[in-house]
């Protein structure tokens, strides 16, 4: 491993005011964006960036540049700084360390004063933290790995419109993961055919059905048609089972006016939940969260698009940061990965995202990619959603990894069942209930899970068919986004 460069030591800030503010170009570390002795305040936001400086760029100078470009700096000295309490506005890089086992990359810790961000605005915070700095030439790449948001700033957000506790009370469903499925095929079904899939899935035993992220209002199905048929299916299934049921109606559209119109119609029809895609953007998300709060509506968030900036380790924003911002901005459900399904996700890293959604207080946990303690200050909790390439045969793994507060979504694993959609739903519900019951009885489900499923399959033919069809399917690929950390021996070791 490359020798660590000289990255500790005293601040190199120029303290002589005349020299500091004479016209010209200074190094960022000379301008006050690097302070190795800085002790972050309780009210500071702290960001951990992974940076890859260009050849020959000193990592400390690179870290100082990140602090500068994400707060007040411009490329040259400006005298107008002296009209302000400029030191407050300068973010401060205060620690740089080589990324373990990854030559050329460094972790840089940067602190931001509370005054830098408008209260209750993720758009404002992100414009600073992931704005210009990510295109800055002296860096080959940069990634925002994690963020500590101070309680003082957390309290300026309303968070999830409903939260997972109240969601369960409204649904009257406790003590087990919720079950869902995405209506398939994603595209091409008419409203009438679409509602059929919803009805069969819900009557068979699922709690929720779901529009896919790219179902909006295309030529094959106008959104009003979809809403009308889906709500008929939801209510019919609710009567057939005696349970509260729902189907996430995707209100994602071209403009806010269109989204409000669709949300109002969903409300008129008695839907308990609407859905938006992450691609609508932070401002639209916070607006829809407000609407949901006013209208007793759950808000489902599909993280469409996140893979473009969360997956590669060297550049972008980690999903754990996106999850933190989404909990503040306000959504009730959030797709957070399956670990065992078809989509990217190292199990520990994925558990880290779940913790961010559900914790009252998130503890630093390096193997799970969590670099900071995060006090959520009683902010409501987000229900994580595991969706994508999972099936009943993995029920023990899913329950063991994620616990009760999660929505398990088996799309293909319900609709692709050889005996039909209702049978697919029955298989999933029986597998789930059998596994929860066994876990509560003290059975080691991680190891004995397959036996529990086989036993349940003896009284449930649909489960037997599901296990025969998919029992051995798994997606074992190496994860791209894993946590990089050095195991530090502690006193107790």
């Amino acid at each position, binding site marked *: 491993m490359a020798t660590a460069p000289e990255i500790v030591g005293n601040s190199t800030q120029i303290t002589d005011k005349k020299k500091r503010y004479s016209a010209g170009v200074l190094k960022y570390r000379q301008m006050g964006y690097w302070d190795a002795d800085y002790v972050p305040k309780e009210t500071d936001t702290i960001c951990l960036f992974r940076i890859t400086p260009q050849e020959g760029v000193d990592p400390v100078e690179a870290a100082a540049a990140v602090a500068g470009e994400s707060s007040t700096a411009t490329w040259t000295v400006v005298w107008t700084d002296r009209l302000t309490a400029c030191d407050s506005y300068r973010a401060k890089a205060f620690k740089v360390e080589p990324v373990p086992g990854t030559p050329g990359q460094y972790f840089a810790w940067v602190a931001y004063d509370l005054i830098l961000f408008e209260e209750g605005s993720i758009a404002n915070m992100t414009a600073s933290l992931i704005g210009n700095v990510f295109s800055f030439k002296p860096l080959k790449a940069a990634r925002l790995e994690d963020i500590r948001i101070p309680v003082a700033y957390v309290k300026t957000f309303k968070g999830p419109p409903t939260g997972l*506790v109240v969601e*369960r*009370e409204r649904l*009257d469903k*406790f*003590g*087990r993961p919720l079950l869902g499925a995405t209506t398939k095929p994603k595209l091409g079904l008419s409203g009438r055919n679409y509602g059929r899939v919803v009805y069969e899935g819900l*009557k*068979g*035993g699922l709690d929720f059905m779901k529009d896919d992220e790219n179902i909006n209002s295309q030529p094959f199905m106008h959104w009003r048609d979809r809403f*009308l048929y889906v*709500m*008929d299916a939801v*209510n*019919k299934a*609710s*009567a*057939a*089972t*005696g*349970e*509260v049921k729902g189907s996430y109606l995707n209100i994602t559209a071209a403009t806010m006016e269109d989204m409000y119109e669709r949300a109002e119609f969903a409300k*008129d*029809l*008695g839907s308990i939940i609407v859905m938006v895609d992450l691609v609508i953007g932070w401002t639209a998300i916070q607006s829809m969260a407000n609407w949901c709060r006013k209208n007793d509506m759950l808000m489902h968030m599909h993280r469409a698009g996140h893979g473009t900036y969360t997956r590669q380790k060297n550049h972008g924003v980690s999903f754990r940061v996106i999850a933190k911002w989404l909990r503040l901005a306000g959504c009730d459900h959030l797709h957070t990965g399956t670990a065992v399904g078809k989509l990217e996700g190292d199990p520990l890293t994925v558990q880290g995202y779940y913790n961010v959604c559900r914790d*009252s207080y998130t503890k630093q946990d390096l193997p799970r990619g969590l670099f900071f303690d995060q006090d959520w200050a*009683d902010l409501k*909790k987000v229900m994580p959603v595991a969706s994508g390439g999972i099936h009943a045969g993995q029920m023990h793994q899913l329950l063991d990894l994620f616990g*009760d507060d999660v929505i398990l979504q088996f799309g293909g694993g319900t609709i692709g069942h050889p005996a039909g959609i*209702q*049978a697919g*739903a*029955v298989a999933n*519900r*029986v597998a789930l*209930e*059998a596994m*929860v*019951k066994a876990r*509560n*009885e*003290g059975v080691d489900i991680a190891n004995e899970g397959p036996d529990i499923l086989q036993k*349940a399959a003896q*009284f*449930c033919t*649909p489960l037997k068919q599901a296990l025969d069809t998919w029992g051995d399917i798994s997606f074992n690929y190496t994860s791209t986004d894993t946590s990089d950390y050095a195991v530090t021996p502690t006193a107790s070791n």
Partner: protein
Amino acid sequence: MMTNPTGRLTQGQFSFLPDLTDAEITLQIEYGLKKGYAWAVEYTDDPHPRNTYWEMFGMPMFDLSDAAGVMMELKSCRSTFPQHYIRLVAFDSTRGVETIVMSFIVNRPAVEPGFGLVRQETNGRTMRYTIRGYEAERAEGERYRR
């Protein structure tokens, strides 16, 4: 007779499994007690999906540590209301949870006729839906007696 795949009301944690035996119910109660939950017994003859408040068969058992105590209450409730729905409910008072965390049905009427869906056509193609329990037509206490 309800037409869903189980042929019965599917509320609660375990409605898709064969009815839990008393020994199995005891194991679930013990799991909850170990986690510090308080158990309660509730019953109703109106299991409408949005009937939140079933009747309380006594108070939640906050200071109880032996599952046998909950089973005693359950048996007493069953003998008083043999044709009612009865559920066991566990409360968690942890800050930030403070809600029900387990709930499952432990007694049902012999016949479960279920619910009908009433559609009221309104503006355009918009529909107002009402879920109506077939037994709820009759007065409380006189339902599920065939």
